[in-house]
Every structure is written in structure tokens, then in C-alpha cells.
């Protein structure tokens, strides 16, 4: 039987590029279904998706990125998908890597595949300050779990059904990426990275502004430590 694969596209005020992102996915990601999670956008993201008859889920209130992506995992789990991948609505992620990721996940029997910008160091590399922050998390995760993750903040992540269930049950509310990787590493899941090329965002703004970055560093550091303390138990 063919494996069912789902692309989760969280979108909050992405009217500038949601249409292009979804069309890109329809064209370049064969064998994948997709679902757009509209996180109660205040612009016309919803109207654009409805006009184009995209497969859309509308959240009744704004839940933030974590809650939106979790809705996608919940949808995927309940609809019997075998794999789910998160692709941001701002066009940073190139959908042509998705098939490679899915094959890698299946072949190596992994629980999660992360698309990393920093293995081949090609394409958009983010600002140097951000790279420094990412390196810091990478080292922290390596110290705590012994696994080398070069791009723990990458949103481009593909998971199997086991992790999908885990995430549907339990997923951080804000800045979820590094924390959730540690959470599943602590549950003895196999996580690997493959090199991808990311683009600069086509529109919209990063959820991590300069002002929030201090909060971000502290929150994510503590969250990773707490995940380690929990040690895979809930």
C-alpha cells in the first residue's frame, strides 16, 4: 500500500505568499497531500485559500505557531497519514526536497528527518547572530542527548506516525522546534538531518524579532533542560 504523506502549512497573515507556496507544493511535491492551517489570520489569508479551494483548516482563535502546527499533526494522525512534514507558509522551504526526505525517512527507518541549512552551507544562511544562537542550541542538545543536530531551529521537519501521535498529544506553544526535537530524542526516537537549501522568506516577518530574541534564548534553553529532566516521561 502506498504511504500517505501530509504537508502541514501553518499560516498566520501570509496573504502575500500563501498562494505561491501552496502552488509550489502542488507542483513539486508529488505523492503528498497538504493542509493549510490558518491560525486565525487578520488579513485575507483565509479568503485567498477559499477562493483557490485549498485544503484549509481555520482555527477559531489565534493559537500561535505551536498550536497551529499541532492541529496539523492531529489532523494527520486522525486521518491515517504515515508521514507528516511541516513547511512554513512564507516560502522559505523548497518543496522539491520533500520527496528525498520522505525516502530517507523510510529507508533508514527514522522517526524524524530535519532539513538542515548548515550541512552543505548552501542557500540562505540567516544572519550571523542567528547562526550563533542556532550553534548554541546545537551544542546544548549534543551535550544533553549526545545527538548532533546542526539545525535544531529548522521548521522543515518530517516525522513518522509515532512522532505524529506524540506531537498531537504534546507540543510546545511557542518556538517549538528545538524543544520538541529534544522531547522525542528523550523518547529514544531516531532523528537525522539531511542537507537542504533554504530561501529567504518571500514575505511576512519572522516570529523572532530582536526584542523577543532574549526571551527566546532563555525560554528555549529552559524548555530543553526541562525536557531532559522529564526524560521522556510525561
Amino acid at each position, binding site marked *: 500500500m502506498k504511504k500517505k504523506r501530509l504537508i502541514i502549512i501553518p499560516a498566520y497573515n501570509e496573504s502575500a505568499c500563501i498562494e505561491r507556496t501552496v502552488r509550489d507544493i502542488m507542483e513539486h511535491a508529488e505523492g503528498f497531500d497538504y493542509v493549510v492551517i490558518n491560525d486565525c489570520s487578520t488579513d485575507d489569508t483565509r479568503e485567498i485559500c477559499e477562493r483557490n479551494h485549498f485544503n484549509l*483548516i*481555520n*482555527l*477559531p482563535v489565534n*493559537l500561535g505557531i505551536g*498550536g497551529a502546527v499541532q*492541529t496539523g499533526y492531529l*489532523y494527520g494522525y486522525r486521518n491515517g497519514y504515515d508521514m507528516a512534514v511541516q513547511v512554513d507558509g512564507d516560502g522559505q522551504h523548497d518543496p522539491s526536497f520533500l520527496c528525498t526526505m520522505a525516502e530517507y525517512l523510510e529507508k533508514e527507518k527514522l522517526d524524524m528527518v530535519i532539513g538542515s541549512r548548515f550541512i552543505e552551507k548552501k542557500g540562505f544562511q540567516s544572519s550571523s547572530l542567528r547562526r550563533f544562537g542556532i550553534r548554541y542550541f546545537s551544542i546544548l542538545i549534543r551535550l544533553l542527548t549526545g545527538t548532533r543536530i546542526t539545525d535544531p531551529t529548522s521548521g522543515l521537519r518530517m516525522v513518522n506516525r509515532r512522532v505524529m501521535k506524540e506531537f498531537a498529544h504534546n507540543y510546545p506553544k511557542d518556538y517549538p522546534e528545538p524543544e520538541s526535537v529534544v522531547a522525542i530524542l528523550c523518547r529514544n526516537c531516531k532523528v537525522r538531518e539531511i542537507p537542504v537549501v533554504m530561501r529567504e522568506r518571500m514575505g511576512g516577518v519572522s516570529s523572532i524579532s530582536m526584542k523577543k530574541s532574549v526571551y527566546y534564548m532563555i525560554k528555549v534553553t529552559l524548555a530543553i533542560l526541562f525536557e531532559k529532566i522529564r526524560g521522556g516521561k510525561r
Partner: protein
Amino acid sequence: MNIRIQILIVIVAFLIMLYIINKVRKKGIELRYSLLWLLLDAGIIVFACFPQITSGLSHVLGIKQPTNMLFFAGFCFLLPISFSLSVSLSRLSDKAKRMSQEIALLNKEIERISNERKDEDVREDC
């Protein structure tokens, strides 16, 4: 303590007590959350009626000024209240999140079913 201020405190505390009880009656606050506040209010009345307790207690604890002890006691009382509020807030926001996700998925399901119906109707018409 001056008898006039004592009477004033007792009257105000009684009014507050009535206000809280009325709030509980009208279900403006759940009884379990009002208990701590009622307890605090009762404590204020007791301390206002019998200032000897305050001075006695502060003497036992080695605090020179009874007022200081009162401030400290009030502070210690309020901290756990606000912490328990943070706890219930976290629980509440988790529940609200799960509920809005369920609503979103339900809406999706309803839309799918009604679309299927429409398709069937169209086919029947043909």
C-alpha cells in the same frame, strides 16, 4: 490601635465579605476560588477586633513593629494566591488550545460532509 479605625476596618471588611458572598451567589466567582479571599477577610476582621493578637504574635516572632508583621503576613498570603492563579491559567490555556483545535477539525469535517452532500445532490439532479 484607635477604636475609630478599628470600627472602620471591621465595617469595610464586612462589606467586602458581603460583596464576595454575593459574587458567589451570582456565580461570578467559583466557591473554591473565593474560599481563600473569604479566609483573608475573616482574618482581617479578627485582627482588627483583637489587636492584642497582632502585638502578641509579633512579639513571639521577634518582629518589633506589629504593622510590619501584618504587611509581611499579607504578602505571604497573596503570593500563593497569585501562584495558584498562574497554575490555573496554564491549565485553562491548555484546555482552550485543545478545544479550539477540536473545533477547527470539526468544522473541517462538517465542510467535507456538506460538500459531499452537495455533490450527491448534483448527481441526483442529472
